[in-house]
């Protein structure tokens, strides 16, 4: 692949980053190719030194925050005509509720993703609570209170269960984090890295 071809393809593949960022990247790679060629590489060798376009695109996607991708996508590329502006104002009762709905759905989805984690943590806390109550009950007995075997027994069970259940909590939290990260990456890839 020659220099011009490389730059053209990279430009085409890197959607969703600002024009300024794109131009800076392109001029950086272009300078690099020129310098590599000046130091004895052929044009083809210099281009292949930079790694494959796929790799570059992947790296750019993972480095760009999701928010700035969305912003870049929402920002209109050209200035709007008067007719378009009027249409947007008139269409407000239609698109505004739709926008709110979409945002609410996204929020709900995100909360749902974490609901499992919240639930297991609540259970874990209740186990620890029961264990604690058992300990308190036992000490109450030592200091002359009534012997409440049920509370002490429940406390022991709670204590026993809280330990392995802690691992369930940790595992689920890690898993959920991973899923939410991979969803963010998928969204970004959809916006940015299209062939």
């Amino acid at each position, binding site marked *: 692949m020659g220099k011009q071809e490389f730059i053209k393809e990279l430009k085409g593949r890197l959607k969703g980053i600002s024009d300024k960022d794109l131009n*800076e*990247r392109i*001029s*950086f*790679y272009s*300078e*690099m190719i*020129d*310098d*590599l060629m000046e*130091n004895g590489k052929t044009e083809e060798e210099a281009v292949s*030194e*930079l*790694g494959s376009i796929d*790799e*570059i695109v992947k*790296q*750019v996607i993972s*480095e760009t925050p999701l928010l700035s991708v969305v912003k870049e996508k929402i920002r209109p590329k050209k200035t709007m005509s008067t007719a378009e502006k009027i249409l947007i104002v008139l269409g407000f009762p239609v698109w505004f509720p739709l926008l709110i709905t979409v945002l609410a759905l996204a929020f709900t989805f995100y909360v749902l993703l974490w609901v499992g984690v919240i639930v297991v943590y609540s259970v874990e806390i209740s186990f620890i609570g029961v264990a604690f109550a058992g300990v308190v009950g036992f000490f109450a007995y030592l200091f002359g209170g009534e012997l409440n075997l049920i509370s002490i027994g429940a406390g022991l069970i709670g204590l026993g269960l809280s330990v392995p259940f802690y691992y369930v909590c940790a595992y689920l939290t890690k898993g959920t984090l991973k899923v939410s990260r991979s969803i963010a990456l998928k969204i970004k890839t959809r916006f940015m890295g299209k062939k």
Partner: protein
Amino acid sequence: MDTQLRKGILDVCVLMAIKNEDSYGYKIIKDLSDVIKISESTLYTILKRLEEGEMLIVRSTEYEGRIRKYYHITQVGIQRIEEFKKEWGEIKKVYAFITGDK
């Protein structure tokens, strides 16, 4: 290597590469190649991060009919190198603790 740690090390390596005299992309990679391998894309990200942190400034110069960007270290950048040396002293202590060396 841990990504955060690697990031910090790469930043300081690049700062060192431009500390004594201004340098440009190709030369930075070449000068550092004996110490640490940095890909062109990674270098771009590092330079961008350092520029945003005001640790270097970029100067575009014409060179043989094309533009070449030179990177110049700032006072903040020099400070960063000094900080890193101090931090490293602490890391060495932790390392000695982990490996059990005295």
